[in-house]
C-alpha cells in the first residue's frame, strides 16, 4: 500500500467509452512528485510530437499531488490539468484549488488521462471504482456553476465535486478555462478548449476512501505547527486585503500596465484599490478545503447597473478589467469577472484582450462598426463588460477576439501585432515588465507563456532586492531557483499563497513529503525534482518546436519606454538586455545557448529516458 499517493492512474478513451486503471509508476512519482511535474512527464509518454492541441490524440491529464486529501493546510485541495496548449502550442498547465482534488484522491486516483473525442457531449462520472460517460446534451450551453448544480441534482448527491467548461470551452475559445467549485478556475493556457475539443463538458467525482498518511502522529504534530504559521505574518496579506493590495503597490512603483501598456500607472488606482474593494464590495472571505487561512474574497455588487453580481476577485483579474482597460469602476470590473466565470474564460486573458481591442480602436485599427457599434475607448466600463460577454459567447466581434490577442492580431493585421501583449501566445499579467527586469526574464522563459506564477521573480524587483531597472548577470540564477521552488509547489500541490509558511522552504517540503508518503526525500533531492520538472517542461516545448526565439517579450515592452513621470520613467527592455538575461539563465540551467537541455544536465538529473528528446532538440 502506498501512502499519500492513491497509486492508480485512470485512463479514459472518450472515443469508445473504454476505461482502464493501471498502477502509478512509483519511480515517476518520486522523481516528478505529482501535479504539473507528474502531468508534464506523463503527457510526453502519451502523445506524439507535433500533435494538434485539438486533436483527439492530444491527451488531457488531470493530476493531483501526494498531499491531496489530507488535512494539510492548503495542500489537501489542489489539482492540475496538463495538456498541449492551444495558445502556446507548448506546455499547457493550470491549477485550481477548492474541494475537487480532495474528492478525486478519495475516489482513488492520482492521475486521470483523457484521450479521444466523444461523438456527442458527455460528462465523466467517477464514483469511486465506477467510471461512466454520461450524456451531457442537457448541460451543453450551461455555465460551469450551472453545470455543477445540474449534475448534483441529476446524480442526487450534494457533495459531488465538479470541474466543468462553459460555453467558451464548447466553442473552442483558446482562452477557455476549466472551473470547479463555482469560482475556482484552472485558468491559463486554454485547457478548457482542449476539454471542449473532446466533447467533454465536465468531470464529476465522488470519493469515499479513507486518506491516511505514513506517519500520522508526526504529521499531526507538524500540522499543528503549520496551523499556527498559517495564522501568522506569512499569510497576512491574503487573509486581509488579499492580492488586490497590489494595485496601490504596483502603481506607486509605476509598474502596473495600464491601457494596454500605453502607461505604467493608473490615475484611477485609488478607485480600484484593494482597500476600496474590501470596504465597498467584499461580503465574505471563504476558504478551500483544509485551508486554515482562507483568501477567497467574495464580492457582491448590491446596486447600480451591475446589481446582483457576485464573484471572487483577485489582483490579476481586477487589474486586467480595470487599469489595463483604463476602467476605474469596481462594479464593472466585478461584472467582467463574473461573466468570465459564467462563460468559462481565463479572466486575465479576457481583460488583456479587451485592452488590446480598445487600443486598436483608439488607433483606428478597429472601427466602431467592427466592434459591433461599441465606443470602445479606454475607460468605457460598459464597453468593457459588453466585450467580455461577446468574447465569452464568441459572438459578433467576440469571434475575432475569443482566441486571444496573438490570433486576433494575425487576423486584423495593420500592425496590430505590436499592440498584442502576449508571450508564446499567452496574454501577459499585471506586472509592467519594462520596469521589472528580473520578472521580464521569468516571464520570457516561463514554459507556459507569459506568467508570474511560474517563478514569482517579480518579488526581487518589487521588494527592492535587486535594481529592477537594470538587466545584469546573476538574474538567471535567481529566476532558476524560484522556478524550481514554484515547480515543487505546483507538484505537491500546495497553494502559492501559503508559500511563506514554509520558513525553511526545501527542508519543510521534504519533511512534509516524508511524513505523508513514507518515502525517503532529502531537501537536496527535492531541489533536483524541482529542476527535473523544469527540464521536462522545457523538453516538452523543445519537442513541440519552441526554443530561444519564443523566449521573448511583448513588442511594447521592448520598444516603447515608459512615458509616465515617476520612478520607472523611460524604462524598457532592449534586445541586448534580453539576450544577456537569456544567456545568463540558460547557463545557470546548464542548457545550450539555444535553450535546449544538455545531455550532461539530463544525466545529472537522472533523466536518461529523455535523452532522445534533448538530442533531437539540439539538432533542430
Amino acid at each position, binding site marked *: 500500500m502506498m501512502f499519500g499517493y492513491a497509486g492508480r492512474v485512470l485512463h479514459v478513451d472518450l472515443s469508445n467509452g473504454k476505461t482502464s486503471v493501471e498502477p502509478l509508476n512509483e519511480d515517476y512519482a518520486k522523481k516528478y512528485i505529482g501535479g504539473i511535474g507528474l502531468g508534464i512527464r506523463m503527457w510526453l509518454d502519451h502523445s506524439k510530437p507535433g500533435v494538434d492541441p485539438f486533436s483527439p490524440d492530444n491527451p488531457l491529464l488531470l493530476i493531483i499531488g501526494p498531499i491531496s486529501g489530507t488535512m494539510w493546510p492548503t495542500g489537501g485541495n489542489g489539482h492540475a490539468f496538463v495538456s498541449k496548449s492551444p495558445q502556446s502550442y507548448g506546455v499547457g498547465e493550470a491549477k485550481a484549488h477548492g474541494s475537487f482534488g480532495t474528492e478525486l484522491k478519495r475516489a482513488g486516483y492520482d492521475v486521470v488521462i483523457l484521450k479521444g473525442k466523444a461523438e456527442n457531449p458527455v460528462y465523466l462520472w467517477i464514483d469511486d471504482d465506477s467510471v461512466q460517460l454520461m450524456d451531457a446534451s442537457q448541460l451543453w450551453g450551461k455555465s460551469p456553476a450551472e453545470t455543477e448544480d445540474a449534475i448534483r441534482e441529476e446524480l442526487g448527491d450534494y457533495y459531488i465535486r465538479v470541474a466543468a467548461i462553459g460555453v467558451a470551452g464548447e466553442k473552442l475559445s483558446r482562452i477557455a478555462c476549466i472551473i470547479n467549485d463555482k469560482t475556482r478556475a484552472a485558468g491559463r493556457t486554454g485547457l478548457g478548449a482542449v476539454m471542449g475539443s473532446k466533447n467533454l463538458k465536465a468531470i464529476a467525482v465522488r470519493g469515499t476512501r479513507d486518506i491516511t498518511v505514513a506517519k500520522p502522529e508526526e504529521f499531526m504534530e507538524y500540522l499543528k505547527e503549520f496551523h499556527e504559521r498559517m495564522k501568522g505574518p506569512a499569510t497576512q496579506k491574503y487573509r486581509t486585503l488579499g492580492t488586490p493590495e497590489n494595485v496601490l503597490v504596483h502603481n506607486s512603483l509605476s509598474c502596473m500596465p495600464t491601457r494596454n501598456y500605453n502607461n505604467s500607472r493608473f490615475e484611477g488606482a485609488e478607485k480600484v484599490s484593494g482597500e476600496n474593494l474590501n470596504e465597498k464590495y467584499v461580503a465574505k472571505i*471563504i476558504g478551500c478545503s483544509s485551508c486554515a487561512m482562507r483568501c*477567497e474574497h467574495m464580492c457582491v455588487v448590491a446596486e447600480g447597473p451591475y446589481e446582483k453580481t457576485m464573484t471572487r476577485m483577485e489582483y490579476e483579474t481586477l487589474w486586467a478589467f480595470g487599469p489595463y482597460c483604463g476602467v476605474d469602476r469596481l462594479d464593472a470590473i466585478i461584472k467582467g469577472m463574473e461573466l468570465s466565470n459564467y462563460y468559462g474564460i481565463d479572466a486575465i486573458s479576457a481583460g488583456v484582450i479587451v485592452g488590446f481591442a480598445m487600443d486598436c480602436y483608439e488607433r483606428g485599427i478597429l472601427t466602431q462598426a467592427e466592434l459591433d457599434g461599441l465606443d470602445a475607448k479606454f475607460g468605457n466600463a460598459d464597453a468593457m463588460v459588453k466585450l467580455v460577454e461577446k468574447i465569452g459567447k464568441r459572438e459578433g466581434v467576440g469571434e475575432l477576439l475569443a482566441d486571444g490577442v496573438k490570433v486576433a492580431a494575425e487576423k486584423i493585421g495593420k500592425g496590430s501585432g505590436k499592440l498584442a501583449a502576449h508571450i508564446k501566445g499567452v496574454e501577459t499579467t499585471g506586472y509592467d515588465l519594462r520596469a521589472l527586469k528580473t520578472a521580464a526574464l521569468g516571464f520570457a522563459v516561463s514554459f507556459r507563456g507569459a506568467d508570474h506564477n511560474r517563478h514569482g521573480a517579480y518579488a526581487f524587483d518589487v521588494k527592492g532586492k535587486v535594481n529592477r531597472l537594470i538587466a545584469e548577470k546573476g538574474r538567471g540564477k535567481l529566476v532558476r531557483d524560484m522556478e524550481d521552488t514554484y515547480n515543487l509547489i505546483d507538484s505537491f500541490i500546495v497553494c502559492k499563497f501559503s508559500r511563506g509558511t514554509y520558513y525553511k522552504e526545501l527542508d519543510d517540503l521534504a519533511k512534509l513529503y516524508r511524513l505523508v508518503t513514507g518515502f525517503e526525500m532529502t531537501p537536496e533531492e527535492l531541489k533536483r525534482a524541482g529542476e527535473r520538472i523544469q527540464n521536462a517542461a522545457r523538453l516538452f516545448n523543445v519537442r513541440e518546436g519552441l526554443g530561444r526565439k519564443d523566449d521573448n517579450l511583448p513588442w511594447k515592452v521592448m520598444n516603447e519606454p515608459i512615458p509616465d513621470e515617476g520612478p520607472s520613467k523611460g524604462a524598457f527592455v532592449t534586445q541586448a538586455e534580453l539576450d544577456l538575461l537569456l544567456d545568463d539563465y540558460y547557463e545557470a540551467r546548464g542548457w545550450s545557448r539555444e535553450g535546449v537541455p544538455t545531455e550532461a544536465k539530463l544525466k545529472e538529473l537522472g533523466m536518461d529516458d529523455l535523452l532522445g528528446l534533448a538530442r533531437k532538440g539540439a539538432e533542430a
Partner: protein
Amino acid sequence: MVKIHDRKFVSADPDKCVGCQICEYICSYTKDKAFNPIKSRIRVVRINQLVNMPVTCRLCEDPPCVKACPRDSLTQSEETGTMSVDKDKCNGCGWCIEACDYGAIMLHPEKKVVYVCDLCKDQGEPQCIKWCPEEALDLVTSDVLAQKARLTAVKKLFHEAMKS
C-alpha cells in the same frame, strides 16, 4: 441529574465559518484515524459562497432520533445529553436518520451502524472546536446562545446611539 440548561453542544457561527471543512477532517481523524469527510460527525454545508455552516448534533431535548429507533439502540445520556448508539442493537435501518431534522446522525459506510457527535468524550473536548482556525465553533448551552443573541440584538439596536 444535570439540568437542561447545563447541557453543552457544538454551535457554529455562520458569519465566521469559511467552509474549509477542517472540522470534518479532524473529526474523522479523531474517530476513524483517517481523513474522510463522510465519516465526520460534523458536516459543512455551503449553500453558496456566502452561506457556509457546519451542522452537528443539537442534543435535542426529547430527541426524535431516540424515539424513532424501533430497536431501542439509541439512548440519551442524562448527564451530557449526547446520544449513544448500542452497536449490537443497531441494524442500520435509518429511521433515526429520517427523524433528525438536522442531518446530524449518519450511517457509517463500513461499520453499518449509525454514528453521531459525542462531544469527543474520550478527548476531553470537541476536536472540531479546538482545530477550527476561524473560531467559528463553540461549546455552548442553549442559555448562553440565547444570551449572546440578546446581547447582539441590543447592541445592534443601540449601535448608532452608542457611537455618538
